[in-house]
């Protein structure tokens, strides 16, 4: 491993430490998706198809993001699609942009995933954050 690679990995570790909600590849890829589509109206099934994970994983990750204040969700009761809005003032977003730049290359994503070990952070209920969920009936 050369110096640049070592430095990048150190930066990645530091950034990941600031964004504990990224616990695995699903969270990483889903957050990248929302970063590139900061306002979207989609069903969980559509999200799963677009990002490439199953709906359970997607649902779990979304709850984590909402709990961490990174994402807002608005839904109607009439159909399954919800509006997801990445919160620009979210507490961890500055670090996330840097993480995205580093993780946007093939090697960078590979390095990031290598650092994401199982059990890095607990399930959403253990994360001390406010849930923001609005249901429009």
């Amino acid at each position, binding site marked *: 491993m050369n110096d640049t690679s070592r430095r990048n990995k150190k930066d990645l570790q530091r950034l990941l430490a600031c964004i504990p909600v990224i616990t695995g590849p699903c969270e990483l890829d889903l957050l990248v998706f929302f970063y*590139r589509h900061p*306002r979207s109206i989609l069903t969980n099934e559509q999200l799963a198809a677009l990002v490439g994970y199953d709906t359970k994983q997607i649902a779990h990750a979304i709850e984590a993001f909402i709990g961490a204040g990174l994402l807002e969700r*608005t839904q109607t009761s009439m159909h399954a699609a*919800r*509006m997801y809005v990445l919160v620009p003032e979210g507490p961890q977003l500055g670090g996330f942009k840097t993480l995205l730049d580093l993780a946007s290359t093939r090697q960078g994503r590979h390095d990031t995933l290598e650092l994401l070990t199982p059990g890095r952070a607990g399930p959403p209920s253990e994360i001390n954050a406010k849930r923001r969920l609005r249901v*429009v009936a």
Partner: protein
Amino acid sequence: MPQADLVRTGIAGLDEILPGGIPRGNVILVEGTIGAGKTTLGVEFVYRGASQFDEPGIIVLFEVSPHKLFRDALGFGWDLEKLEKQDRLKIVFTTRDVLRQELQQADSVLLGEASKIGARRIFIDGVARLVGGNGTPETRSAFHVLTEGLQRENLTAVLAVEASFNDGNVNGTFAEESIADTVIRLKMEDTQRAISRSIEVVKSRGQDFQMGRHTFRIVDGQGVQVYRRVQAPRKASRDRAAAFDPDTRVPTGIPGLDELLNGGYFLGSTTVVAGISGVGKSVMALQYLSESARRGERGLMLSLDEQVPQILRNAASIGIQLEELIKNGLVHVEYEPPQEIEVDVHFHHIERLVHEFKPKRVVIDSLSTYGSTLGTGGRIFRDFFHALVALMKEEQIAAVYNHENPEMLGMASMMGEFAMSSLVDNILLMNWVEIADSFRLGLTVAKMRANPVNRVTHECEIVNGQGLRVLPRTLPAAKRPFSSYAGLVSRAPTRRPREREEGVSADGDRME
């Protein structure tokens, strides 16, 4: 229609062909093949609304990621991300199924978002598969539901739909076309190996518009630029018509010529100087501009044949410091390469130059180059020349067009294959005349409207450091004047009998 009920697109040139804009609440269908510019036009419509007219908007995407849209928009100087942060614009990524459901219900999150920012405009990119099918009653019904949803929110909507065109007829979007209020077609056409883009307003409920295909370009740092087609009727200005000056003459500055023209060309007149290459047409043009500057008037030269440094050098060789005149703002010279001229774009450029620089004299060098580029057979060249002449007359500019006649000795016709002498007020013919073993230069004022001329061929010469001058009818004894000959332009000049020579007395003495 009152201006307040029109939505200005803000897209350069488009509000001119849709006079003032589009009726508010219209559903606008923009059709075109891949790469035609539909997305750029739609995004610009919303961007201009949000940034220039205080009309927030929504952009709905199905395939392109907003991230890429932000990136691409920056290339045009549009900071969409900034407008989003200011709540003047929202970009929503969704699927067609979801959008269809959203527009069918009263408590739609999409429309709620639009309402939150006070959106007045919406662009939906890629509508065709939203409604499925092709011309079936279900397609029609689905599109109708879509438009009803948009109109419920009083949004002026641009919907981009991919369509192919076959001999001018569109394939696959008939149902949508009949329901939409405004239909705009974008085409990319193969023109002698080049590709040119055109935009056509096919219909627009509630307003008049300029029909036909207009050229448009997608310009870096700006966006869409529409160039009204050159054949489109111009709006006559009553003020300009009232200010028409029928009497003022514009001297040419060419020694000996103004006497033949009774003082010069009329203001607003069209003059063609025709002759083979090398007879001095460009020299005359430079002297014409120099005279303009001497009188404190602005002169414009548009060259398709020679680049500016060459023109400056040619001017210096006849004693005209053109560069100085340019620096002083009295003369403006432009070169435009003739290859692949798009006539609408070119005319727009000339029109802008004329409006900004406000010249009293214009020289275009040369008409024949336009002919070889645009072709003289079809209507395009003729319509373009009509438009040029009309523009110059409107602006009361004395315009001179150089025209290369291919015949070296004499001329069979005044303007050859161009056949537009009826549009021209004044025609000067420049000819080589072979007498004995040398070529001498002849000038004939063949036509001058509202001005009697004697149509006598006069000899000219180009003097190094001075330019062209028209010689008197009598010459020093060493040189037999043109008046000694007959048939100068007919390619077979012959000596007149001595007693019929002008300037020769009955006993053979030359009269000075």
